[in-house]
């Protein structure tokens, strides 16, 4: 997927983050959200490996081996940040102290089930923080391509891959659509400016209820 599609997803998600929220960004497309978080909104980023206040990569020569992000890369900590150990970090996650988690996905389904950690027989990198994040964060936002590399829908009726969490997803934001997961099912609230409703429905493997006022992004 080209860069403009990734940034579109990231930019749209950044608009959802209210003032003073504490947010965790997963690897991949979610990390791009940092570029679109407006200054002055008091939004703090939580890093699962032990701090709040994740800042941009330090200038070359200013890295310290004692401060890395969740991908293991040198990080900086912003004013207002704080450090703690992994038990505290996951108490913050599991204890519902995070406002948002932004995660990637392999599949999301009509019930809000999420599959993002393994493809049996192919890809078993492990679990990491994704299961705790999906269960603990107050809002779970999925940032992903609308279709996979084979052109197949990633939003499906029922996940066929092993689940990361059951019924925890709240929002799905792709390069084509902005979808809210509700007890009544998936509600399509916005579509990307360069696509049509027909295209979105065609590339979605689950039932979509279309909002009365369909927005654009």
């Amino acid at each position, binding site marked *: 997927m080209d860069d403009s599609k990734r940034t579109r997803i990231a930019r749209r998600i950044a608009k959802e983050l209210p003032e003073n929220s504490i947010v965790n960004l997963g690897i991949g497309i979610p990390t791009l959200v940092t570029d679109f978080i407006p200054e002055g909104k008091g939004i703090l980023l939580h890093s699962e490996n032990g701090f709040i206040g994740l800042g941009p990569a330090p200038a070359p020569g200013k890295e310290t081996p*004692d*401060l890395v992000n969740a991908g293991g890369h040198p990080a900086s900590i912003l004013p207002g940040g704080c450090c703690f150990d992994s*038990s505290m970090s996951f108490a913050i996650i599991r204890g519902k102290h995070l406002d948002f988690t932004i995660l990637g996905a392999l599949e999301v389904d009509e019930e809000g089930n999420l599959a993002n950690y393994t493809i049996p027989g192919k890809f078993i990198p492990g679990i990491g923080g994704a299961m705790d994040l999906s269960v603990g964060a107050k809002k779970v936002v999925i940032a992903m391509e609308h279709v996979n590399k084979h052109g197949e829908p990633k939003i499906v009726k029922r996940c066929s891959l092993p689940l990361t969490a059951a019924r925890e997803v709240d929002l799905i934001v792709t390069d084509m659509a902005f979808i809210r997961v509700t007890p009544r099912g998936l509600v399509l609230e916005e579509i990307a400016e360069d696509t049509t409703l027909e295209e979105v429905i065609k590339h979605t493997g689950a039932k979509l209820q279309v909002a009365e006022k369909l927005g654009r992004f």
Partner: protein
Amino acid sequence: MKPVLTPEKAVENIKDGASVMVGGFISCGRPSAVLEALFEKGVKNLTIISNDTEKEETGIVKLVMAGRVSKFIGSYIGLNRIMGEKMRSGELKIELSPQGTFVERIRAAGAGLGGVLTPTGLGTAIEEGKEVMNIDGRRFLLEKPLRADFAIVKAKKADKYGNAFAPGSSKNFNVAMAMAADCVILETEEIVEPGKMDPEKVTFPCVFIDLLVPVSRAKAGG
């Protein structure tokens, strides 16, 4: 006061078949010098308990490549493909846990608790074989405490009692692991006299630490 030892002396009592917790998250907060001494010692059939393995062919990956590890318990093995290869060939047994469950099982062991009740993993493969309890209408998975014979942990500065400080994100799993093993080996960049550590800035209370291993950062290669 705690014994101050070289890395080689510190691993003297680690025998074949031991379970060893290793602190660190990717390459941050890793006790590299003591891990290297463990490699040099040649012990095998180890159970290594660590969140992940680092990307490079160092530390835990090096032990696995040399066939010294029979079991790995952690949360992520995707950083170096050797882990997946050894798992598929049957040489290495791997147990994976969600990261939060992993650290809390270790903390529970160190804190004298009988287990952890967590919602993480409900409705997933993690639930398999485990008891689900209903507490006041909410469902939780019962996860058992996880302890080890040895824990190898990392700090920046320690006093001779073992009070130690780990900065930034280097605390990670080191803190819980220092509570949950019979013998805790602390690799630290600096050792100071009692009174030179601010009691308010202690990451590892001295009670948990058994052996002190001073290793300057340059020497550890980190």
